């Protein structure tokens, strides 16, 4: 069965997922990876900001925020 890839923003708050691939610029990908968001990492979408953007995720025990624009290019599969 092939797993269906979703973008990180398409998750609903409270859902956990596994990071699969990045379609980001190398700089942005590097920073996300250095902060612990790597392919195979489990993340949880914690919430959307009051105005819908940015989003807050939980990764490796801490909370990180990033914009929809970047999150759209981070592909995940449901955990």
């Amino acid at each position, binding site marked *: 069965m092939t797993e269906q890839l979703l973008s990180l923003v398409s998750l609903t708050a409270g859902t956990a997922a596994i990071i699969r691939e990045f379609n980001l610029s190398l700089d942005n*990908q590097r920073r996300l990876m250095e902060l612990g968001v790597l392919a195979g990492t489990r993340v949880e979408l914690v919430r959307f900001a009051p105005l819908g953007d940015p989003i807050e995720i939980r990764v*490796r025990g801490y909370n990180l*925020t990033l914009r929809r624009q970047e999150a759209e290019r981070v592909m995940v599969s449901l955990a």
Partner: protein
Amino acid sequence: MADTSPPTHPPLVILTGNPNCGKTTLFNALTGLRAKVGNYTGVTVEKKEGRLLGVPKNEPITVLDLPGTYSLSPQSLDERIARDVLFHRLPEIAAPDLVVLVMDASSLERSLYYCGQVMELGYPLVVALNMMDVATDMGQQVDPEALAKRLGVPVVPMVASHSDGVTQLRSAILRQLKPPPRPVAEVGIWQELSPDVQREVHSLAGFLAAPNRAVSATAEALLILTDEKALADNVTLYPDTIRQRVANVRQCWETAGVDWRLLTIEARYRRASAIRDEVVRETAAVEQTWSDRLDRVVTHKFWGFIIFVAIMALMFESIFRFARLPMDLLTAGVDWLGLAVGRLLPPGDLHSLITDGVIAGAGAVVVFLPQICLLFLFIGLLEDTGYMARAAFIMDRFMSKVGLHGKSFIPMLSSFACAIPGIMATRTIESARDRLVTILIVPLLSCSARLPVYTLLIAACIPNVPVLGLFELPGLTMVAMYFLGILAALIMAWIFKSTLLKGEPPMLIMELPPYKRPSANTVFRHVWDRAMMFLRRAGTVILGINILLWFFATYPRGADLGPRYEALRQPLRQARQTVEAKSTRAGEIEAQLAALDRRENSEKLQNSFAGRAGRLIEPLIAPLGMDWKIGIGLISSFAAREVFVSTMSIVYQVDNNSDSQEHTASLAESLRAQRRPDGTPMYTPLMAVALMVFYVFALQCVSTVAVVRRETNSWKWPLFQWAYMGALAWGGAYVVWRAGHWLGY
């Protein structure tokens, strides 16, 4: 390099770690109150340096606090400085003798990532495992001994905010500094790298190796091979042969399908995960910490905004309300000092210089200290509790509408205190373009130096009438000025982002640290440093300007002026002696004498250097309804805005010399007493608003110009900024003055 000779400087201990790991609190605990806050040469990255407490005076140890960083592949100026210090690339900083790596026990994997990078550099190392309490709250028990064994370096568990573990850390530092220090030069992820990568790194390291080098050659080879910026940032450090070699190796890897940029990141996290699993025991399945629960409210769609607005309102309300009493006391103190010192000195130029120039001038600035302290107290609290990041999270969408970054919010908020820390705070913004836009607009936000100007003009000119039964016009005017600045800043940001500095909207990747109880020590330190910075400015630059201004307002003295007025007074005085003391005629003569005094003083001022400068710009500001006396205030304000207040006090005291013996009229009263040549009041509400609008927009601050020059490394941007803000100021004041007249004010 002079590394072969014995070191002449005290041993250097470097403090490094991720942002929000409690590094600042730890630094304060290690060095006490005597740390020096300065800058690295050429950039406005804050350099905090202090002496380690609890060591003998004759064997000092220097502690240097590096800016917080997530990795040695920098994304911001702050991180670049941290990397360059650790790689011993800054000539002003010696090679570290010991590195204290501050780790966040509650976020161990991410801390271990950076830890791995720093350990490889080969310096003697001590790990300060901070935030043990937060980890416990999260249901995680970190075993410091297991970690120490695994890493091969001493690990000191700590709760720096409660000063737990500080003594142990201090002794660990001293132990590790004792010769011979044991370096830990081993690449921790070596086993994770493929044989081919290992070979290339080894061979490049062979080229880098040199006697007495501070940093492990293997670590440096690995970094410059896998980080495109490590080489590009410091081209001059590496000879062509090295650069050629790096390029060749990368090409080979690319052909072989190896992603050299991301190669080490995965390996490091594999190692970090493994170590974490070994040393952390989950003691309880904590679904939600109190910080998570708090966040549900603080970042709530509805309550989040209410809380945000409430905090901002509370902040400004208390700045105006609670500062009043200490400000009144300071004013009274300064007045008393002026009178007391005045009595000791014989009348004359020296008397005038000391009381009107030095005491009144510096005093007019120092009285704003309470407001500045309160403002920095709030900013310090917001930062230390972790709310600042939430504010950026809430505001980001709004800020991105004008092309800015949630992180631009923090410099903007700081700029309500002073544009200089605000501009300094922009260094956390990764994109150079966004950083520049933020720098260009933050001085539009009303800083605390404008507050004296607003306060004075509002007190003098805005009638205290209730509005809608709830508000009062003076307070509302003040709020309006702040909003005008905010609006202008947002509009200008949008204009710059869509014209001059067009570019991709920036990336926002920001940690939301857990909330914590603010540490009194850290917050106090923050307020103290900023207050001292302000006082130093008041004590040096502003005091100097005041003395200069006093001189310009007093000299040159027309030699014939005194005798000429004396000749006019003589007949009046004689006439007064002939009439009865309290008759109407005597009153008339007194009034004529007083008018004569005023005219003499006015003429004196007109002849002085300041008067001439004011007259010179009068044609420029006449369309704004301003006269040359205000011109003097404006000119002196270009040094620093708050000087307006002290200048006006000098200008009008010079103007009202005869009255000053009776009682020192408050400056606001003397503003109200000023008349235009046609007899109408000078300072009408409309005039005050036009002047305040001018002050909202104009970049009247030499220090800001200097900081912007240093930050942007060119005169182009500060000059551009000065010109665009000047144009806004003139235009704004003109529109207010014209529209006000047209509306019949």
